[in-house]
C-alpha cells in the first residue's frame, strides 16, 4: 500500500470519526433539547387553544441531509402550533399498504401513556380473509377516530368527555364517574376502562426486597402525562375507574412532538398533521382517491383516514 493510499485511508477514518462525533453531538443536542421540552413546564402549552409561543425549532437530522416524512411532519406540526387551536384540524392517516403488523405503535402507545393491563388505545386489528387459495391478511391499526360527530360524548351523564378546541375528543378524568356509557356508544370499540390492575399485581409482596411487589410495581406507579397533567397511579385515583382513550398524544403534540405511534411506525405507515394546512403531508394524502374511513355510513365523520 502506498503512502498516499495510507494517507487517504487515514483521512477517511478521521473524516468518519469526525462525522460520527458530530452525529453523536447532534443526537446529544437532540436528546438534551427534548429533555428540556419535557422537563420545562413553561413549554407545555395550555389546551385551551392558545397559540404556541415556545414551540422549539425542529431538531435537525443528525447527518443534516436526510429528511424523511417524520421530519416533514414535525416541521408541519410546529407550523400548525403557531395557529390558533380552532384553525387546526388534526388528522391521522394510516397507509394500510405500508403497515406490516409489527404492533410497534401499540407498544409505544402503551409505554408513552403508561397503560395498565386491559387498557389499550391503539390495537392493530389482524384479519385473515378469503378462502383458500384466495386468501389475504390485513392489518388495521385502530386509534380513536376523533369523530367530528362523536356518539360517545352526548351519552356522558356529566359532560366528562367532549371535543376540545382542536377537535380532539378528551376525557376529563376528574369528572368521569366510570359508567362506561361512552364505551358502549363508540362504534369503533375505541375506548377502554381502567379497572385498576397492574402488571405486577400478582408478584409476591416480599417487603423490603428488590424482588418484592412494592419495588416491582413502582415503575407502574409513576405518573403519565396525558392531557398535560401528571397522574401517578395511586389508590383509586383517576384514571383508575375511568374511561380511557387515545387522544392523539396531545401532551406530546403541544410541545412540538408527534404522537408516539407516528414516530415509532417502522414503515412510516402512520402520518399525522393539520389537514387545514394545504401544504401538509396529511392534506396531500387525504386528497388521494384511495382514502377510506371506517363505518362512514354512521355519519360519525372520523378524523382517521386509511389509505387502501
Amino acid at each position: 500500500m502506498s503512502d498516499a493510499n495510507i494517507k487517504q485511508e487515514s483521512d477517511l477514518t478521521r473524516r468518519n470519526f469526525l462525522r460520527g462525533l458530530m452525529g453523536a453531538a447532534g443526537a446529544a443536542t437532540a436528546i438534551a433539547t427534548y429533555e428540556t421540552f419535557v422537563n420545562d413546564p413553561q413549554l407545555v402549552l395550555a389546551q385551551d387553544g392558545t397559540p404556541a409561543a415556545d414551540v422549539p425549532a425542529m431538531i435537525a437530522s443528525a447527518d443534516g441531509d436526510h429528511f424523511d416524512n417524520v421530519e416533514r411532519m414535525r416541521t408541519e406540526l410546529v407550523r400548525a402550533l403557531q395557529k390558533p387551536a380552532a384553525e387546526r384540524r388534526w388528522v391521522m392517516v394510516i397507509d394500510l399498504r405500508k403497515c406490516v403488523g409489527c404492533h410497534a405503535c401499540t407498544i409505544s402507545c402503551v409505554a408513552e401513556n403508561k397503560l395498565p393491563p386491559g387498557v389499550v388505545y391503539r390495537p392493530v386489528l389482524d384479519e385473515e380473509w378469503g378462502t383458500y387459495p384466495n386468501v389475504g391478511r390485513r392489518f388495521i391499526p385502530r386509534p380513536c377516530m376523533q369523530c367530528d360527530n362523536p356518539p360517545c360524548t352526548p351519552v356522558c351523564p356529566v359532560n366528562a368527555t367532549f371535543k376540545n378546541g382542536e377537535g380532539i375528543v378528551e376525557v376529563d378524568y376528574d369528572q368521569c364517574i366510570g359508567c362506561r356509557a361512552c364505551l358502549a356508544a363508540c362504534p369503533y370499540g375505541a375506548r377502554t376502562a381502567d379497572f385498576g390492575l397492574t402488571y405486577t399485581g400478582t408478584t409476591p409482596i416480599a417487603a423490603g426486597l428488590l424482588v418484592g411487589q412494592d419495588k416491582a410495581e413502582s415503575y407502574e406507579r409513576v405518573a403519565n402525562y396525558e392531557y398535560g397533567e401528571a397522574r401517578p397511579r395511586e389508590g383509586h385515583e383517576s384514571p383508575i375507574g375511568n374511561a380511557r382513550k387515545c387522544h392523539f398524544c396531545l401532551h406530546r403534540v403541544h410541545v412540538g412532538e408527534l404522537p408516539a405511534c407516528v414516530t415509532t411506525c417502522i414503515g412510516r405507515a402512520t402520518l399525522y398533521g393539520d389537514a387545514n394546512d394545504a401544504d401538509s403531508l396529511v392534506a396531500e394524502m387525504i386528497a388521494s382517491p384511495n382514502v377510506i374511513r371506517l363505518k362512514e355510513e354512521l355519519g360519525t365523520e372520523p378524523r382517521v383516514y386509511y389509505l387502501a
Partner: protein
Amino acid sequence: MFTQKNIKRLLYILGIIAVVLGIFGFYNRLFFGERDVNYGSYVTWGLWVAMYLFFAGVASGCYMVATLDYLFDVPLFKGTGKLALWAALVTLPAALISIGMDLGHMERIWKVYLQPNFNSLLAQMVWGYTIFGVVILVSLWVAVRAKDNRPLGLKVFVGVGFVLSIFISGGVGALLGVNASRAVWHVGLLPAQFPIFSLASGVALVLAIVSFFTNSANRARQQRVLGIALVILLLIKTYILWSDFSMSLYSGVPQNVDAITQVLYGEYWWAFWLVQILLGTIIPIVVLVIPRWAQNRYLAGVMGILILVGFASARANIVFPALTVPELGGMAEAFSGPHLGFEYFPSLMEWSVTMGIVGLATLAFLLGIDRLPFFKDSAEVAR
C-alpha cells in the same frame, strides 16, 4: 307445611343467607374496586346493569299496579296499593345499588345531580329515578294518612307517578336503544317494550305478595285476576320477543344475527330456553291458565317468583349478547388482556353482590310488613 307463617320464615332465612353471601361481594367491591368483575371494556355492562334494569322495572311495575287501588279505584284491589308501593320502595333502592356498584367512581355520583348533561339518557334516568323514589315515598305517605279514603290530591299525585313510571321504565330501554352502534338494541321497539315488561314484572311480584302475605276476603279473586293478567302479559312479551328475533334473523344483518344466535344457541342458551322461556314463561302460563292450580295460593305465588326470575334472565339476555359482538372484525384477537374479552359470565363477586342486594330487598320488604305500623294494624296483611 305450606303455611303463610312458614313461607315468611323461609323467606327470612333465605334473605339472611343471601345477605351473608353478599358480604364478600360488597367487601371486595368497596375495598378493591372492580378488579374482580368479569365485564370489561368490550362487554361494558354486566350482571349489575341487567339487575338495575330488572329492579327498576319491578319498581315501576309495582307502582303501576298500585294505581289500580289509588288512581283507578278498582274495588277488587282495595288494600293492595300499600303493599305494591312498599314493594316499589324496596326494589327501587335495589336497582340504584346495583347500578351504583357498576360505577368506576361511585363517589362522584353527586356530579350527575349538580353537573348533569341532560342530553344523556343516563343523566335523565338518574334524575328520573330519584324523582320517582320521592314520588313513591310521598304516595305511600299520603295513602297511609288517607287510610280508606281516596282524596283528589292522592289521585293527582298517583296519576303523575303513573305517567312517570311509564316514562322511566321506557327510558331504561332507550338507554340501550340510543346506541346506534349496537344494531340489535337500536330499534324503536326496544324502549316501547320495556313498560310492558315492567308492568308484567310488577304484576308478578304483587301476585306473589298477595298469595303469600295477604288474607283479605278478596284474596282469591285478586290472585285469579292477577294470574290472568300475567298470562296475557306473558303472551304479549313472547310475541314481542318473536317479532324482535325473527325480524333480526330474517334481515340477516350480521351484528343482529350474531347477537340473536348468541342468545338462542350460544354458550348460555340455557339462560334463554330453560330460565326465560321454560321456567319464566311456559310453566307459569300453564299453571295460571288452569283454574285449579291458579287458585292454589302457594302455587300461584311461586309462579309469580318464577316469572320474576324469567324477567331477570330476559334483562340479561338483552344486555349481554349485544355486547359480545365485536364492533370491528379482528378486535377480539388484536390485543389481549384482562377485561378485554367478548365472552361474559358474571364473576363470583358479581353474583355475590347481586345475592346481597336481593337479600337486602327481601329482608327490607319482610321487615316492613312485619314492623311498619300501617301494615301491622292492617287487616289484609297476614300475621
